[in-house]
């Protein structure tokens, strides 16, 4: 028997926390898919550790979204009992792992943003978001370094690793624009000092990204057409499959606890 989806009253602040929580959960889940499959033991541990950080961030953000909403929801319900159209994550983070290069490039593009984003968010007027940011920015600095080192190793490695890394960048590039987009609800939060304007991070993000890509002897794609939709629940076909695995226990055995 399947459980019904919960309803969420998406006020601007609830939605804001939910979007970041969904980013962290979905990317964390993607990385956890490597557990036991990574090309070497150290990477298996590294990707699982990063997944753990991200899922930890997601838990804090979901708990906060539930608290702000003030209804019957909690972190577990928000994660397990919303369907694909209710998820608000970036399209970038739900993209499949592909090969190791694609996983690392996805992680690199996101971490280069998350590192700047969380550092800026430590100045949020919202005490909880600022506290979550202060923890997350420390973690994202490690995530960025890990992904950057790998990108250089792959790009400046063999012909095969170089070609795969370049293909991953070319493939994922169109999903990066969504990180910098804002809607009216977020604009109000930015105005109130609760959120930061991600557009102001774009220059520094591009600087980091192009610096590492250059050092990796790879090239930045020239196309600037960007795909969006995740923030409003219009996802690629991949998210539904991911959720069917992530949510299967709660959907099959509603209310199950350890």
């Amino acid at each position: 028997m399947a459980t019904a989806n919960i309803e969420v009253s998406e006020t601007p602040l609830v939605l804001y926390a939910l979007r970041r929580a969904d980013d962290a959960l979905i990317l964390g889940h993607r990385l956890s898919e490597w557990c036991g499959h990574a090309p070497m033991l150290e990477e298996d541990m590294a990707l699982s550790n990063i997944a753990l950080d991200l899922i930890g961030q997601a838990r804090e953000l979901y708990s906060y979204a539930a608290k702000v909403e003030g209804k019957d929801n909690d972190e577990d319900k928000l994660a397990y009992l919303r369907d694909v159209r209710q998820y608000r994550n970036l399209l970038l983070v739900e993209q499949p792992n592909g090969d190791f290069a694609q996983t690392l490039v996805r992680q690199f593009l996101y971490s280069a943003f998350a590192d700047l984003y969380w550092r800026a968010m430590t100045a949020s007027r919202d005490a909880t978001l600022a506290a979550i940011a202060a923890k997350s920015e420390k973690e994202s600095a490690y995530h960025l370094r890990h992904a950057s080192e790998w990108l250089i190793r792959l790009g400046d490695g063999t012909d095969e690793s170089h070609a795969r890394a370049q293909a991953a960048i070319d493939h994922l590039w169109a999903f990066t624009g969504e990180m910098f987009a804002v809607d009216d609800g977020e604009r109000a939060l930015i105005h109130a000092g609760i959120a930061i304007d991600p557009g102001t991070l774009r220059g520094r993000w591009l600087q980091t990204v192009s610096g590492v890509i250059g050092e990796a002897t790879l090239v930045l794609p020239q196309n600037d057409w960007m795909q969006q939709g995740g923030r409003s629940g219009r996802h690629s076909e991949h998210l539904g499959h991911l959720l069917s695995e992530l949510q299967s226990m709660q959907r099959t055995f509603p209310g199950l606890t350890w």
Partner: protein
Amino acid sequence: MVTVLDDASALRQRAWDAAASVVDPEIPVLSIADLGVLREVAVDGDHVEVAITPTYSGCPAMNMIALEIELALERAGFHQPKVRTVLSPAWTTDWMSEEGRQKLRAYGIAPPQASSSRRALFGAQAVACPQCGSEDTELLSEFGSTSCKALWRCKSCREPFDYFKCH
């Protein structure tokens, strides 16, 4: 009045000592006080509330630590102790006591260095081997057996070792 105050502070000390006796399940030589995870112990009558702060957002040891604190306080005679988690200010390895650093080294884990170096994207760090003290060491992986550790190897004595990451 003096006696009452002394009683209150003795009671708080007893609660603090009980909570501080809890060790990190992954690094059993370090108490949560050594780690800086134990932030606050407040006693009001026979009610006690303990504040702890997570090291890493997703650290799975936190639930176990909270449970261990409750058990330790109950054993010390406090009824229905409460443990709450505070996020701010964010935990940093700078809070780790000198005693804690020495215990770590003796246990075979290189203690964290000053957190100021953490921001460099590709900074070279010199981490001394906890076994032989040599600084001729190399990083094997930024991520080790737990969230808080990285994997290193000593090029002098050839021993691999854990390094407690600065945070």
